[in-house]
């Protein structure tokens, strides 16, 4: 422990003018007598100056294509790559062959498919966003997946669609942060639903999984209801 520490500990605050009059005077008095602390102060000054003069550096890769592809889509929740990739890997591992990215379809109930036999993640910068409108959990026409699984639930889908419409319509009445928090949390639940559903498709008779899935859907409805209620003027 250096005996200078009680002084050097104050040097940053001294530099940034965060000290009181008395403290400042004391530090200056000490600096007058102490070459080592003066030297430290000099280093700190240089570091601060260097930091302030740092120039921005552009990214190595051109990130614009990854941005452009997302601009075309209607403003909606987007999964981050690790989450999406994790979900698609899980599904790929379970079902093999074509992987249905169960992001939900548009009003017609289409879902997006991607072939991922190797289970590799999508290229960075390319993300799939869910189209506005009904989140249908219709698994579409993908072959090879357990047909007997009651994974879809028409009533649930309809309720979700209705609430999403209400939320979409009313979101202008919410402040930006709340909208973003709600969307973030909807995507957290969606990912949980996707994971549960993926697991259930591989193990259709698993009571735990179907219960878990039902519960997750219920929570999504709760959140949507709450969010839609928030958009109503008091």
């Amino acid at each position, binding site marked *: 422990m250096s005996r200078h520490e009680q002084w050097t500990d104050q040097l940053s605050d001294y530099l940034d003018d965060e000290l009181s009059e008395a403290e400042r005077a004391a530090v200056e008095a000490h600096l007058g007598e102490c070459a080592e602390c003066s030297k430290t102060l000099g280093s700190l000054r240089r570091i601060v100056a260097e930091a302030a003069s740092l120039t921005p550096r552009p990214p190595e890769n051109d990130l614009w294509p990854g941005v452009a592809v997302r601009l075309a889509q209607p403003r909606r929740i987007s999964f981050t790559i690790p989450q999406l990739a994790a979900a698609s890997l899980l599904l790929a591992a379970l079902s093999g062959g074509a992987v249905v990215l169960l992001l939900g379809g548009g009003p017609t109930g289409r879902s997006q498919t991607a072939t991922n036999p190797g289970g590799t993640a999508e290229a960075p910068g390319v993300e799939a966003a869910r189209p506005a409108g009904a989140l249908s959990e219709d698994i579409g026409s993908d072959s090879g997946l357990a047909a007997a699984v009651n994974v879809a639930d028409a009533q649930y889908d309809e309720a979700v669609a209705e609430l999403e419409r209400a939320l979409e319509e009313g979101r202008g009445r919410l402040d930006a942060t709340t909208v973003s928090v709600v969307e973030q949390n909807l995507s*957290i639940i969606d990912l949980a639903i996707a994971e549960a559903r993926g697991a259930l498709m591989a193990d259709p008779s698993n009571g735990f999984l179907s219960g878990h899935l039902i519960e997750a859907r219920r929570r999504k409805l709760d959140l949507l209801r709450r969010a839609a209620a928030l958009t109503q003027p008091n």
Partner: protein
Amino acid sequence: MLQYVLFAALALAQTDQTVPVQKGTRLDVNNFSGDVKITTWDRDAVRVEADHSDRQSVDVRPGEQRLIIRGNSRNSGMRSIDYAITVPKWMSITVNGNYTDVTMEGVGGDVNVETTRGDINVSGGVGFISLKSVQGSISLSHANGRIDITNVNDDIHVADVSGDLTAGTTNGAITLERVDSSNVDAYTVNDNITYDGPIRDKGVYRLTSHNGAISLAVPDRTNATMSIRTYNGGFRSSFPVKVEDQNSRRRFSMTLGDGSARVEIETFNGSIALRRPGEAPPANRRDRGRD
């Protein structure tokens, strides 16, 4: 949100009104932005102190068995009003706000709070207690009754309460300590649940998460049928357990004592840990993630 510190003794408050109230009157506060701090006293009266700008005023008026408190802003922009309200202990309270932190101490009636971006901190509450936020932590202690806490992006912390309890959030942890209840339902998606309280005979306790770990303190001589289910996580217990009806390593049930209570612990990606009361629970995700 502007942050003012209200000193009740000093004359910083620009509104200071005291209104007598009859027993059974409910307090109804609506504050778009600003703090609402509620404390109690023995008088059958409500004192409203509020800190706000010149262009605002506070309306305190009686309604249908209610005392209604609203802010008025004469210019079009919403400005923040900070309230310090003193109420009789028996009074039931409703607070609605948007960017509003709500604190209550010593309250003894129903409590109903809803805010969008704000912390809720209630100590007290008897009867129906409902606390809702979207972004902001919720804390309840020393309450008794039918308790319903809903959050979205943040934690829920409940301690020293009794009565039926439902606590649900999406992106936050749920911590239930010294909860004396026969009916507990705690649900989160993205974080942990910790439960520490008696497990009453014939009670029903459900702790569910998706990504979080669940930790339960199991007192000695508990009578419960425990259903433990996780999909990807592990299970551990700090005391010996005898597993029956094991579907898999990760989903099984066990009977303690006469099995009269029903305890269902379920997570998908997280692990499940049982311990004895007094042993330290695992740390929450967020605490671990902090620098």
